[in-house]
């Protein structure tokens, strides 16, 4: 990491090791902060998360943990006091609610103890059990996914936790900067709720529901108001993603698919008007794209300023020319294992770039140095 790294000089200790805190810490680490995973002897829970590296021994076999841990150190801690030693002079301690600010503040007087939990530290759900699906259900996202008759579909993976970690990074870095520029001082405990972070997806719908008194109803797979056409259609060589929102996009889309008879229909000049006739229009769109090449339609459509997409499979994703040209993937190197390809940090700073991919430290490879407590903390 160059001297010019954006976050050089910031020390971060992850004392929680959840996917959310680990992603928050990853953004710090990839941009040059000194981040230490303060792990229990068996390692963070992320080490037991799939997918696993074929043939690799535990506890270094989780690809997810490796991706989350690039450019960080790992220390084994046995007690809260060990974590405090590790956190001396830290600007940030990532926490899941176990610690009080005072635990660290004497050693690091401007410390930001950044607590990331499913529901936040207060409120009736504070002690509830959280999962990605629970959060996505409570924010109103799941209700809209899937067939009309149901059941609604849960999004795959750990998306809610990643969003929570990203929100925590924003809040935490804001606090660090405020301390550096003199807009804030002293220790602080920041409370990030994964539930509230994910409400960014549905806050608009929440306000809409508040005003209209209506609830979200599923309209079918890939059908979401107020936009139509919107969806993913099979072509002869892959999948084409379609969105046409404005009247001019609709007209261009009709021209692209040789459907000019629908271009000027007054009802179809609004997305909502088209949505009302989706069951009429959809079979036609399917028929028109079925025998065509998705790539060709994509390029011709984009040439006509229609927001179309190629929808790559997971296998195709790594070879999409756009992502190859931008080097959107790079190598993560877990200890003692062959490296694997994974996404790099998604935002690019041209002058102070993030580290791309990176090494993963073995569990406990950093030995924390005990620190003499300040006079004020001695018995």
């Amino acid at each position: 990491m160059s001297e010019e790294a954006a976050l050089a000089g910031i020390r971060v200790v992850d004392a929680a090791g959840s996917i959310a805190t680990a992603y928050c810490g990853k953004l710090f680490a990839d941009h040059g902060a000194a981040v230490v995973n303060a792990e229990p002897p068996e390692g963070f829970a992320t080490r037991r998360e799939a997918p696993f590296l074929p043939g690799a021994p535990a506890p270094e076999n989780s690809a997810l943990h490796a991706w989350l841990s690039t450019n960080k150190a790992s220390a084994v801690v046995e007690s809260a006091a060990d974590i405090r030693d590790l956190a001396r002079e830290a600007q940030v301690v990532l926490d899941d609610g176990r610690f009080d600010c005072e635990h660290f503040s004497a050693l690091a007087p401007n410390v930001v103890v950044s607590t990331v939990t499913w529901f936040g530290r207060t409120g009736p759900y504070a002690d509830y059990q959280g999962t990605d699906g629970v959060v996505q259900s409570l924010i109103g996202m799941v209700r809209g996914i899937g067939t009309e008759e149901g059941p609604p579909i849960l999004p795959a993976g750990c998306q809610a936790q990643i969003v929570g970690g990203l929100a925590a990074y924003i809040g935490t870095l804001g606090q660090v900067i405020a301390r550096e520029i003199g807009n804030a001082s002293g220790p602080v405990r920041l409370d990030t709720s994964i539930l509230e972070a994910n409400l960014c997806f549905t806050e608009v719908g929440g306000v809409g529901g508040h005003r209209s008194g209506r609830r979200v109803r599923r309209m079918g797979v890939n059908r979401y108001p107020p936009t139509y056409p919107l969806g993913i259609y099979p072509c002869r060589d892959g999948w084409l993603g379609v969105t046409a929102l404005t009247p001019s996009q609709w007209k261009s889309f009709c021209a692209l698919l040789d459907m000019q008879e629908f271009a000027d229909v007054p009802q179809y000049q609004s997305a909502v008007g088209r949505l009302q006739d989706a069951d009429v229009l959809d079979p036609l769109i399917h028929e028109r794209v079925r025998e065509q090449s998705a790539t060709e339609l994509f390029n011709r459509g984009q040439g006509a300023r229609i927001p179309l997409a190629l929808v790559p499979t997971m296998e195709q994703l790594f070879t999409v020319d756009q992502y190859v040209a931008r080097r959107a993937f790079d190598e993560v190197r877990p200890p003692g294992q062959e490296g694997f390809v994974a996404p790099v940090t998604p935002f690019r700073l041209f002058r102070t770039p993030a580290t791309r991919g990176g090494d993963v430290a073995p569990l406990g490879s950093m030995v924390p140095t005990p620190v003499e407590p300040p006079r004020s903390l001695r018995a």
Partner: protein
Amino acid sequence: MSRPSLLEGVRVVDLSMGWAGPLAARHLADMGADVIKVEGCVRFDWWRGWEATQEWIDEGGAEMSPAFNMVNRNKRDLTLDLSTLEGADLLLRLVAISDVVVENYSAGVLPKLGLDYPVLAKANPEIVMISMPAFGSSGPWQGYRAYGSTVEQASGLPHQSGEESMPPTMIHVALGDSVGGLNGAAALLTALRARRRTGKGQHLDLSQSECLFPLGIKGILTQSVTGSPPQRLGNRSLEHAPHGVYPCAGDDEWIVIQVRSEAEWKAFEAASGIGGFGDVADRLARREELDDAVRAFTSAQVVELLMPELQEAGVPAARLAGGLELTTDPHLAARGFWKMMQREYVGELPHPAPPYRVGEAPFDIDRPAPTLGQHNFEVLSEVLGLKADEIAALAEKGVIGTKPRLP
């Protein structure tokens, strides 16, 4: 109460429109930055409305959009016609005394106006500027158009959710926007920290489609390390059961239940009275039978009661809320998550708090979204030092204004 002053002294010029860019700037505004949204009377933020007619303008349509109101609170609004020499010059003067520029125009728009990064950086070498094109500012797709939906499609994420029998399944009407906005805020803060260290501004490039890769990380890594795509499992889990979305009493009422351990299974077994199933291996082997039993149990339950009952027993469970329940959710209400604010044209609207807070109260929100050109006089006089007659002349020429105009 007032907004926190964490970023007091930081001035942001927000040229962005729609959802992602304005959301990025909103996070900075919520932390106390002075965010000045710059739009035109002809080229106004398209989230005010994308099907503008004169009737819509006359009825105040440009001020009614809940979506626009949601992402532009805590900001001031200045109209400038950037296609005029006066408008472009005023923007350059504003950038010269600002810290951040946020833009998400289609590629080519700012260069055509003579206002791209090299020009703005000449006006202010310390400026931090983020461009947020859908696919990034390089590569063969750099000029391609997209919405949040297009970005989700292009990220490959739809190949992870849903059943194998379904087409690739999108999970939102505009997933890329919110995630792009959060990443935009993260990028801007990172660059502000870099500027503090180096004294230098810089240009940031954010590809909204790449921002979705971390959300699909489990599936992407499965492909990367095993050479095979992740299975599309619908609501099932390969490791746990019961795990799914189950119907409750009433019209389209559902509950998610995701048992992750034997302790949680024991708690669920006791709460539901479902018997006859063994350890997780047995439950996975007899998943359909188990799901039938869970459905039979939940179908007779009222979801508002079942969720707390299961949660208090230690079982991860939640009702599937709809738009209507978000602003009445008891937890969010207890945490003061929604703040009701009055605004011209729309009356009282709820505004969501930032997802991070210090102490029990959320960060306060000072002001609702501005009306078009609401702060023209304030910004032009107080920030740029224009005299009243100069401002009146700008209005006369149509460089500034407070009502949308059709092209």
